[in-house]
Structure formats: structure tokens, C-alpha cells
């Protein structure tokens, strides 16, 4: 599935220049709420998805990601609040509007006794793709997910990763403008997950808008905007970098010195701009982690501080925390702040 593989690197129609940018978000959710009995699956969610972006809905299992997607696709109606897609409530979509959506459900939603190609033909048919387009679309979609050689294989004989690729190809056959992909990378290996995200980036470059849910927090890095959900609520929504800053209150810089630093020197470092805080890592007393408002300025300030203190510095570098750490920090902060 890599871009230099046997198939075409991107076989779906590029729509970046075909459709004029629309004013306002493609998806707009306001106070979106879904209640099942006593349980609030989604609770007052506000979210906008802009055209041509990849928005990741990240959160633990049961956080409301799938319910949010279902409301955005029109499969479910909100209990309260509202959601509009292309300016209309999706639950009231007619066939034409529905044909602009691509949806990859959490389950593969394909038939084990049909071959890969037969499954794709079936999905193309239920989207009303005309016979004259079907063959080329099928060829392009199979090529896009590197399954051309396996098209005659029965789905039940295909691996889990292959089945997810078929499901992705099925989502693309009718050339939708907006794709909702519900945990597309669930249960597949890291290499294939990366390839999936490469494909999503290609789709984005072709002008499509993607809303992707994932439990793999690390995949947030591939998104333009990450919306963190927990217990049905939107905890944070920002760019990946913005989310990091939000999580820790700034950016992080690590300074590795050769000799121990006395407390007075540390105090002076804390008073320098743009340093907000300094932490001496317990595992390595020679490493100082600085919380700064901006990483570049922080690194400059750290070098100047070391010179002024006469300290030998082994390294000064920006520390990019993993999204696991970011996610944990965001949730902790959200829970602390109430």
C-alpha cells in the first residue's frame, strides 16, 4: 500500500480543484447529545470540520467516537443539539446527499462468502455507480489499497488487514466528498496502520475531507485537528502541536549538562524568558526539562544560561512528548479542571 508500490500511488480522482471552497465548515456540530436510556453517550459536543482536512476523533473505548460519527452520517439522530453536514441535518439527507458521504463502519460490513471484487461491486451498486464507471472505479480502488492481485480471493479467506483494506476501498468507490472512517486501523499491525494514514493523506490532498476515529492515540499526529473525547464529552480539539501545548501548558526543551547544577543556577534559569518551569528528571540528574512558551526561544535561552553559569552542555533539544503522554496529560488536566 505504499506510494511507490506496484499499484498507482493515488488512483482516486483529485477533487482539490474541482469544487470551490465552501464557506463555513463541512460538518458543524453544536451541543450534540445522544442519550441511550440513562447513559449519555455523547454529551453536548461542539465540533467543526473544515473542508480538505483530516480530523481525528481520539478517545478510549466508550468515549462516544462511534456515536458521534453515526450522528454525523445520519445513521442516528441526536437526542438534542444539532449537527449539519453540507449545511443540512444528515438524518434528513436524500439519496443525492448520501452519495457524497463515504462511510467505513467499525465492523467490516462486507460479505465473507463473496470475493473481494464482488464485495466492492456490491457496494458500488448500492451507491448507484453506473455500470460504465464501475469497472474503472473498481480497478482504481483495488490499486489504491494494493489488492488488485487478490481481487478474486474470498473475503473469508483474507487476512484481517486485507479485509480492512477492502472496507476502505469500498468507501471510495463512489468518490465521496466527505469520508467518515470509524476505527479503520483497529486490529491491524503498525506497518499497515502507517500505510493507511499515508492513504488518508493522499485522499486529503485530492480534496477530500476525512473524519477518522481511532483508539491509537499516536495516530493523532497524522491529523490536522485532533478532537479528544472522554465519557461522551469533547475534552480538547486542536492541532497535534496545539494539543501538546494544551496538555503541558507549553513546549518542552531538554538540556543535558555534564556536571550537577546547583539550586541557585536552577532558580536563575526559571527566571529567564520564555522559561515557565524547570524540572530535574529523576532518572538522570544531569538532564533538565524546561517548560517554555516557544521551543526555539527556550533552547536559545538555555544555551545562554549555561554559558553564564559556566556549565558544560552536552545537548539542548526540543522534547516532543508522545501522544500517549499528551493524551494522558490532557485527560488528567480535564479531570482536574472538572
Amino acid at each position, binding site marked *: 500500500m505504499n506510494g511507490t508500490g506496484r499499484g498507482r500511488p493515488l488512483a482516486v480522482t483529485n477533487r482539490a480543484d474541482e469544487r470551490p471552497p465552501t464557506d463555513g465548515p463541512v460538518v458543524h456540530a453544536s451541543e450534540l447529545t445522544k442519550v441511550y436510556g440513562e447513559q449519555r453517550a455523547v454529551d453536548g459536543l461542539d465540533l467543526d470540520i473544515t473542508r480538505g482536512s483530516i480530523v481525528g476523533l481520539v478517545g478510549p473505548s466508550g468515549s462516544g467516537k462511534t456515536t458521534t460519527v*453515526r450522528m454525523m*452520517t*445520519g*445513521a*442516528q*439522530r441526536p437526542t438534542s443539539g444539532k449537527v449539519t453536514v453540507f449545511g443540512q441535518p444528515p*438524518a434528513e439527507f*436524500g*439519496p*443525492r446527499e*448520501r*452519495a457524497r*458521504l463515504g*462511510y467505513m*463502519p*467499525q*465492523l*467490516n*460490513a*462486507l*460479505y465473507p*462468502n*463473496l470475493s473481494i471484487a*464482488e464485495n466492492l*461491486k*456490491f*457496494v458500488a*451498486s*448500492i*451507491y*448507484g*455507480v*453506473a*455500470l460504465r464507471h464501475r469497472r474503472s472505479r473498481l480497478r482504481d480502488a483495488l490499486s489504491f489499497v494494493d489488492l488488485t492481485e487478490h481481487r478474486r480471493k*474470498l473475503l473469508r479467506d483474507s487476512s484481517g488487514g486485507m479485509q480492512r483494506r477492502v472496507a476502505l476501498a469500498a468507501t471510495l468507490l463512489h468518490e465521496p466528498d466527505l469520508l*467518515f472512517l470509524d476505527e479503520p486501523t483497529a486490529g491491524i499491525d503498525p506497518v499497515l496502520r502507517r500505510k493507511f494514514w499515508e492513504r488518508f493523506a493522499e485522499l486529503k490532498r485530492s480534496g477530500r475531507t476525512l473524519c477518522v476515529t481511532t483508539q491509537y492515540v499516536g495516530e493523532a499526529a497524522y491529523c490536522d485537528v485532533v478532537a479528544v473525547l472522554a465519557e461522551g464529552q469533547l475534552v480538547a480539539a486542536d492541532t497535534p502541536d496545539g494539543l501538546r501545548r494544551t496538555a503541558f501548558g507549553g513546549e518542552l526543551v531538554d538540556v543535558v549538562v555534564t556536571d550537577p547544577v546547583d539550586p541557585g543556577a536552577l532558580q536563575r534559569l526559571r527566571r529567564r524568558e520564555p522559561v515557565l518551569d524547570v524540572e530535574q528528571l529523576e532518572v538522570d540528574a544531569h538532564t533538565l526539562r524546561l517548560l517554555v512558551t516557544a521551543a526555539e526561544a527556550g533552547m536559545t535561552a538555555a544555551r545562554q544560561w549555561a554559558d553564564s553559569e559556566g556549565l558544560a552542555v552536552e545537548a539542548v533539544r526540543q522534547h516532543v512528548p508522545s501522544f500517549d503522554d499528551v493524551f494522558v496529560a490532557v485527560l488528567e488536566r480535564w479531570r482536574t479542571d472538572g
Partner: protein
Amino acid sequence: MGDAIRTVIRSSSFVRKELVEIVRQPRLVLTLVLGPFLILLAFGAGLRDEDPPVRTVIVTGSDPQVVEVAERYRETQRRRLDIDEITSDRQRALERLRAGELDVVVSFPDDATETIRSGEQAVVTLFHNFVDPIEIKAIELSAEQAANRINEEVSRGLVVRGQRVAGDVTDRLASTRRSLTALEAALGAGDPEAAELELTRLQRDVGALALGLGATDAVVENITGDGDGGDGRPGAQAAVLGTVAGLTARVDALSRGEVTAAPAAALAAIESDLNALAAGLEEFGGLPPEVIVSPFQGEARRITEGRANLSAFYAPAALVLLVQHMIVTFISLSLVREEELGTTELFRVAPLRGGELLVGKSLAYLLLGGLVTALLTALLIIGLGVPMRGSWVVLGLSTVGVLLAAIALGFVIALVARTDSQAVQYAMLVLLASIFFSGFILGLDRFVAPLDRLAYLLPTTYGIALFRGTMLRGEPGAPVIVAGLIVLIALLGGASWVLLRRRLGSQ
């Protein structure tokens, strides 16, 4: 591309998908076609037309006449009863019955002859241990028929004896004719002494004739149980006795000299009586004893041609039942599995209308069901010899109607069920209801209202009536059946559509 074309594309996608999915499962296809046929074949080949033999012991006393009757009973019941022995040990026979070694014990009373002579009917008791009400009904009927057969056999013997006596009387009639001729001659010759002598002879012959005929009367009385010789006597025998009474009166009148004016006319009347008597005796003697004992015999005859045996009667109904069950199960499982696979969720988001799915799947299963029905019908006709007396077009239309109703029922079940095990359970309930209420085993008129209405909610009820009618009678039956099937399709189809729209709509 127009919406109409898209609708065709979307509907047709289900036709292809459903058929390919089924064909991809060879075991399923085998089960689908071969399974029902093997069941039908086993059913047709295994079903016996005659009632199964009943293991029986006959108990009699020591009365040789009763033993003789029991032997005759054994002969007459050979087809129905498998008579193990004739014994006088009633206790042992009843013990064997309780132990399950026997099905029936036929017990003749010890004092049967005495009972009959005392003017009462002797009761032949048939002991059994059946719990099946239909079997009990059959045994009761059998006991009644057996008693009638015994009575007929006894009566037949008596009639034979009566006819033998009537033969003797015929000889005496010839002697009487001779006496009459001699009397006529004496009177013609004007010889009063000879005339008186011949008259005396005639009187004696007529007396003997009356006595002989009295014996036949007694015999016939035994047959009919009618002591006064009235309406119960067979016609020929009654006519003979009437003639004899007239003849005796005439001869007595002649001997008393009451007939003096026209003795020739009196003699002619006597001759006429003798002729009538001869004719009557000839008729009585010439009738077979069976006809005298049982002048009427019951016979049932169908007003249309042909006759179906038991397996031919049940086979079309079994076919309808199997095809309905197959279609209901497959279509309900198909929809429930789509729910479990997640494709229903995809359908909710896709530009797919409920009607398109309904039409697509219906067409697929109509094709499949039609093919299986055609194959099984051919196998029934060729393999089991089931007749096909009606129109193939009517049978084809009936198949389409029944399949559409079964498909719609399958949709309703699928849309009510949440899991495949629930769908299978509901399909089994429909099968059970169909076996009991559709006329497969018991006729529809055996059920009381309002439960008899339940039958009309089942496609098999209409299918069985239409298939049996078309194949066995040559005509589909009452138009109300066709109208009822159309209404059922509309009702179930409407319910399916509403439920499907709800299922595919936003939740």
C-alpha cells in the same frame, strides 16, 4: 443517470449478491435441494396406504358356535388385524395387552348363544391400550364394522338354509300343480267323486306347501328379527308368503263348496296363485344370500377422475411446507446476519431505500424458491408418481404467490428478531404453526373459531390448498383462496416495508 436507473442498479445488486452467496456454499445448496427431496422421498416411500396391522388375540368361551363365529371374524379382519391366536384365556390375553405385546384383544362373551336365544344382543368387546385419539376412533369404527360383519355372516348362513328349504318347497309346488290339473280334469269329466278326491289331494298339497314356506319364514325371521313377518322380510319372500295365504283361502273355500257358480274361474285363480308362488320362490332362491342379508352396499366415488394415494396426497403439502420453511429461514437469516456484519449500518448511510432492498432480496429469493420448487415438483412427479392433473401455469402462479408470502413473512421475522438464533427460533415456530394449522395434517374445518383464523395467516395454508387442488384435483379450488393469498402478501409485504424503513432509517 436517472433515479429510476439507480433504483434498478441498487435493487439488482441484491439479486446477484444473494444468489452468489448461496451458490458459494455448496453444502447449503445440497441441503437446500437434496435435503428437502430426501425428506419428501422418505416420506412418500415410507408412508403406507393401508392402516398398520394391529397385533390381536381373540378370546372366546368353549361354545363351539362362538368359536366358529370367531374364526369367521378372524377371516374377515385379516387385512386389518394381525391375529396371533384364538384363546379362551381372557386374563392372559389382557395381561399381554397391558405388557404391550398386543394392540387389541377381541373378547366374545362366554354365553353368547344363551344371550342371543334370550332375545338380547351379545356384545363383542374390543380391548385396547391406544392413547392416540385418531387410532382410538379407528379401532372403535373397526369394532363396529366387525360386529356388523359377524351379524352379516350369521345372517348369510341362515339365508342359505332358508333357500335350501325353499328348494324343497318348489318340489312340493310341482305336486300341487299336478293335483290341480287332476282336479280340473275330474271337474271337466263331470266326475264328482274323483273331483272330491283330487280336491282333498290339492288341499293336502297346499297345506304342505304352506308348512314348508312357514319354515322359510322362520328362517327369514331369524335374519330380520321381525316376528310378525312384516316389513322386515326380503321382498321376494314376503310376496311368496302372501300368495300362499291367498291360495290356502281359495282351496279351503272350494273344499267347503262355497264356490259353486264358477268353479273354473276359482281353479284359474288357484293356478294363477301357484304361478305367482313359483315365480316368487324362483326369485327368492335365485337371489344371492349376500344381497338378501345386505341389500344395500356403501360405495364412495370421486366426481373427478383419478385417485391419489396417501403419499401423493401429502407430498404436495410437504413440498409447500419445506419450501416455505427454507425461504423464511434463509431470508430472515440473511437480514439478521447483515445486521450482525454491520452492513445494515452501511445501508443506513448509503443512498439505499427500503423498497429497493425489499424488491432486490425478494427477486433473489423468488428465483431461488422458484427453482427449488420446480426441481422438487419434478422429482415428486417423476420420483414419487404424484399426479399433475391441473395447469402448469396455475401451479407456477401459485408458486409465485406462496413464495412472495413466505418472503414477506421472512422479512417480518428478520425485522422482529435481533439475533440469528432468534430468527431460527421464530422460523421454527412458523413451521410448527404451519404443520398444525395449515391443513397439512388435519383439515381446516377441525378447528374452532377464532383459532381457525390462524391458518389464514400462514402462506402454507394457501399453498397446500392450491398445490393439492391443482395437482390432485386438476383445479386450484375456491377463488377465495387466491384472494386470501393476495391479501396476505399485501399485509405481510406492507408490514415488511414499514419495518424495513424503520430499520434503515435514522435510529
